[in-house]
């Protein structure tokens, strides 16, 4: 059992949630309440990682992060090391591929809030921030929670992008999914089976927990 890989994976998933969810709340709410020219294109662009093969995303990230690009070079001169094949690079990649998993449920949740409620809040003299904090966020919370869980669970299972930009370095970029692939190649079926079972269990618990919480929340705010 590769505990280092498991810890790394959980850490990557947790940090992806932490970085992505605030962004997803801002972007999701903005998309829910405004309409503008090119909104469809914006939404399509945000949904892209959902349909693109991970290899395509991985390839573009590799090119963008690599020492051949201005971004890669700037990063390298600032931090003294390349973004590819590092945990930071993996985190950036993970945030990007998870955008649709976080933004879409959040956006749907904000869309479901009746505009009348916002008007009523404004009539009562609530400030914008207070209205968002006291009315919209609690109502959108099940959607946000779904975004959190989907992002977390999807990061646990992400393979293609991690393989391409990670480089399978133990303790740095070797996630459980990669470690399983690695063990299979090393003819170590016992370790692969153990890790697969553990990942299956963690994923199941995560998803089940989200259904449970969403149900309870749904009842409370219904």
């Amino acid at each position, binding site marked *: 059992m590769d505990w280092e890989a498991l810890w790394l994976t959980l850490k990557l998933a947790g940090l992806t949630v*932490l970085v992505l969810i605030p962004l997803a709340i801002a972007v999701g709410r903005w998309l829910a309440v405004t309409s503008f020219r090119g909104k469809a294109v914006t939404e399509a662009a945000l949904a892209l990682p959902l349909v693109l093969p991970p290899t395509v995303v991985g390839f573009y990230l590799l090119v963008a992060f690599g020492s051949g690009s201005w971004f890669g070079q700037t990063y390298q001169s600032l931090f003294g090391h*390349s973004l590819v094949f590092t945990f930071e690079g993996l985190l950036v990649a993970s945030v990007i591929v998870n955008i649709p998993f976080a933004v879409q449920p959040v956006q749907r949740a904000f869309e479901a809030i009746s505009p009348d409620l916002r008007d009523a809040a404004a009539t009562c003299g609530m400030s914008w921030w207070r209205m968002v904090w006291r009315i919209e966020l609690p109502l959108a919370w099940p959607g946000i929670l779904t975004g959190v869980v989907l992002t977390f669970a999807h990061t646990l299972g992400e393979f293609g992008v991690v393989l391409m930009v990670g480089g399978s370095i*133990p*303790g*740095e970029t070797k996630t459980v999914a990669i470690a399983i692939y690695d063990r299979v*190649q090393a003819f170590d079926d016992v370790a692969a089976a153990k890790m697969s079972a553990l990942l299956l269990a963690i994923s199941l618990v995560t998803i089940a927990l989200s259904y449970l919480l969403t149900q309870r929340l749904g009842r409370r705010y219904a």
Partner: protein
Amino acid sequence: MFKRIPAILGLLAILIAAPLPARAQDVPVVVAAADLQFALVEIADAFKKDTQRELKLTFGSSGNFARQIEQGAPFQMYLSADEQFVFSLADKGLTLDRGTLYAIGRIVIIVPHGSPLKADGTLADLKAGLADGRVKRFAIANPEHAPYGARAEEALRHAGLWDSIKDKLVLGENVSQAAQFATAGGAQGGIIAYSLALSANVSKHGPYALIDDTGHQPLRQQMVLLKKAGETAKAFYAYMQSPSARAIMRRYGFVLPGEQS
């Protein structure tokens, strides 16, 4: 629900603050051709016992690693299955020097238990099997970037089998995956590294036979220290040339520089 936010944030803060283990210490990432999968793990264990120094080993296809090194991967030492990859990195100024030859590899044909094919190093039975339809799938490593795949292709071409086998090939990303494919039962056989076949993990899946090494270019395996190499990587580079490491390499069927096969 919102009362729990501080707790959640606190938990995530712990996640960030928790250092990734072994990052600051001198534990170099050593990348190696997949044919070293078993031999190098043993050598790294012996190295640890002798020097108390640790390594992070990653195995894969030599060509992929060369590409990743060009892209700035933070590796300190690279053990290729093909010297050309090392020379090309050296020409680009990415290595400390032009490296050292550490072994010459051999290829074998392996067939899983119950395969209609015989483990025949002359490839004569493979030829017969292709003619009479016994061979449906045959595994080799991807010749485009895996040296063992390229040598397998040469051996198949040399035997005059390439045209009849090329539509039946399944390609492993590296030779270790090719071994996986060759022995898992979906294919009737495959050409893999001798060093892998000599491991009990692989040989328990079926018999194998050495392929004559006059039918392909030699697998001249070159290792090199990369620009970022630290003390431990340098120590390991020297250790690879020590008698204890050479004894392990010999046990895995490698021909060592300065020795006859």
